[in-house]
């Protein structure tokens, strides 16, 4: 309450400016408080985000490195038949190479442990090498082969040497062998190309993200190609052409409801309709894309409608007033104006689709698939499902792969959004 008497000036009248001034401090305090709240909110959300990034990157960056072991292999002509390279026993050559480093290992069990230092893929590497270098057969060569995932974990410091031997994945003898390899310079860490070129595998050192990456790519292509035209056309029709009556009201309410339906329900729908009724194959990007289209459509329709609503009606009147037909008015004037907004809605929808796991589980995209899909009807998995699968695996090495896969997913997302923002900016500039 104001003390009016105090505010009275010589003429005995209250001046408005005095009342205003009295309240000024309070108003500014309020403003400051609001700004502080706002800043705090931004800082909190940013810190959570950075926490997420820090934890993922610190867990996952090692997955981009792979421990390699150098072996001196004697390409014995008794083992390799020059005319029949495929049938040679390359594992035996690898084993002999290992034994030549540790000649004192004689017991069967110990030998198996010794052979376990390198990945089972070492033999394939050797075969590839021999196929490329036929003239080396009969000589002694040096080859870098991937280490086993346990050795890899040890080298990356994830295995604590102080834990009791019985609880360690690597026992004391293996530790000694590895240490000897390190001393002899026979172990190094290189960039893990396998991670980007291979499909999934039961062996962590052989598992790659490429299959899931392509699966996601094909799935999203299907989703984009279907959902943007359908969603856009539906939005344009509902917003610009449809009469406003009870039917369109019902349709609008239902679209809004669909946007809130749990995604697993769309998965079940896809399972029932696309797989059981139409008999489409399981685990394929085509069906995944169809299911994600169902899920993405409401988002795109709602965003597109609000983008269309935001186009000023004066533009519509201008078009009609000059004698444009309704379709011309929409196509020439309204759509170009609304397109950036429609694209934004599509980006949001596609980002949701990229991160969606649940509906894809229902149509079998959770299967363990080693091959990299080469088309829309090849069995495949997608990035988030791959993350789910790896997070579920018992091997320690899959932990870092999980984080690395999340990083790949985020980069995929950023690239996708970047392209869309670029397109949108270009479109905005043209008008």
């Amino acid at each position, binding site marked *: 309450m104001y003390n009016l008497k105090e505010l009275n000036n010589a003429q005995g009248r209250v001046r408005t400016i005095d009342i205003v001034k009295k309240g000024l401090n309070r108003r500014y305090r309020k403003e400051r408080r609001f700004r502080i709240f706002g800043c705090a909110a931004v800082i909190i959300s940013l810190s959570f985000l950075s926490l997420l990034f820090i934890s993922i990157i610190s867990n996952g960056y090692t997955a981009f490195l792979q421990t390699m072991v150098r072996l001196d292999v004697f390409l014995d002509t008794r083992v390799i038949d020059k005319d029949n390279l495929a049938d040679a026993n390359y594992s035996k050559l690898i084993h002999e190479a290992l034994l030549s480093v540790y000649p004192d290992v004689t017991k069967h069990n110990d030998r198996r442990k010794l052979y376990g230092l390198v990945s089972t893929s070492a033999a394939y590497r050797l075969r590839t090498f021999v196929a490329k270098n036929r003239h080396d057969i009969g000589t002694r060569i040096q080859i870098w082969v991937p280490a086993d995932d346990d050795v890899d974990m040890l080298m990356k410091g994830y295995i604590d040497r102080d834990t009791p031997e019985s609880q360690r994945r690597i026992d004391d003898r293996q530790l000694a062998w590895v240490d000897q390899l390190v001393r002899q310079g026979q172990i190094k860490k290189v960039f893990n190309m396998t991670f980007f070129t291979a499909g999934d595998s039961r062996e962590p050192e052989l598992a790659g993200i490429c299959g899931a990456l392509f699966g996601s790519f094909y799935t999203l292509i299907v989703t984009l190609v279907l959902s943007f035209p359908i969603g856009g056309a539906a939005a344009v029709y509902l917003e610009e052409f449809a009469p406003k009556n009870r039917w369109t009201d019902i349709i609008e309410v239902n679209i809004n409801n669909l946007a809130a339906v749990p995604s697993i329900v769309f998965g079940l729908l896809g399972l029932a309709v696309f797989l059981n009724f139409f008999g489409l194959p399981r685990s394929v990007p085509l069906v995944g894309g169809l299911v994600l289209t169902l899920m993405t459509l409401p988002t795109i329709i709602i965003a597109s409608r609000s983008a269309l609503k935001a186009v000023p009606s*004066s533009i519509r009147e201008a078009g009609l007033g000059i004698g444009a037909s309704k379709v011309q008015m929409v196509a020439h*004037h309204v759509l170009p104006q609304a397109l950036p907004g429609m694209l934004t809605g599509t980006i949001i929808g596609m980002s949701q689709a990229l991160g969606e796991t649940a509906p894809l589980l229902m149509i079998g995209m959770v299967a363990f698939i080693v091959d990299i899909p080469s088309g829309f009807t090849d069995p495949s998995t997608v990035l988030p499902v791959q993350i789910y699968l790896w997070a579920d695996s018992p091997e320690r090495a899959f932990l870092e792969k999980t984080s690395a896969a999340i990083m790949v997913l985020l980069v995929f997302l950023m690239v996708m959004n970047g392209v869309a923002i670029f397109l949108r900016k270009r479109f905005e500039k043209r008008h």
Partner: protein
Amino acid sequence: MNQEQTTGHLPRRPGRRPLVERTERETVGQTAVENPRMSCQNVGVFYDSKKAISNICLDIGRNEVIAMIGPSGCGKSTFLRCLNRMNDTIEGCLVTGQILMDGKNIYDSDVDVVPLRAQVGMVFQKPNPFPKSIYDNIAYGARIHGLVQNRDETDELVVGSLKRAGLWNEVKDRLEMPGTSLSGGQQQRLCIARAIAVNPEVILMDEPCSSLDPIATAIIEELIDELKQDYTIAIVTHSMQQASRISQRTAYFHQGDLIEIGPTDQIFLNPLHQLTEDYITGRFG
């Protein structure tokens, strides 16, 4: 504001007939003209069964500027928008009566609004150029109607329209700039140029100067004066001075009724209806 100024009466000229009572809602004055361009008969408009205008009879002559004045919400814009069926775009809008053009009711079910609107152009209250280049703004209408076949014809049309709208000298160096980058007055002239580029027979103007400063207004009024040689112009305006400057006939609307129609001089100097006099003397509105 001084009260006496706003409600003061014009001095009645001697020998003047008594005014028609305020309660009387029949149209006063000569609604018909010889050889009209458009002829409205008993036009009524309802928005969701709410009456906006009713029972309007009015002829629009050839090569005349007819002004429509009246207080806000009196239905003058609604009436204007009937003339090229722009009211069709409003949900729940119903138009009754007849508007004849070349002997044909434009509200007949077999009338196509697209050629109608090419014939009856419109300039809106707020300048609304397309968010395209100045060139494309002008060329658009002619392109969709197929009035131009090639680039040369289009160039000629654009230059001609801009010259007629008195905008050429100001924009000749920047035809590729967006139309929205012009000033308000230039934008409105661009809209007029856009309207005349499709060579309509009637141009409807819905308060074209309401958002412009006096200088831009003067330029547009001059333009209207020139255009009337080739076109019929129906203009809605809030400015009585503007109506008296540019129009030959003036129609006064009040609460959805056409109260009085007559030569502009007569309406402003010697109105027959009490409501008209109230309005032009500033008693309300």
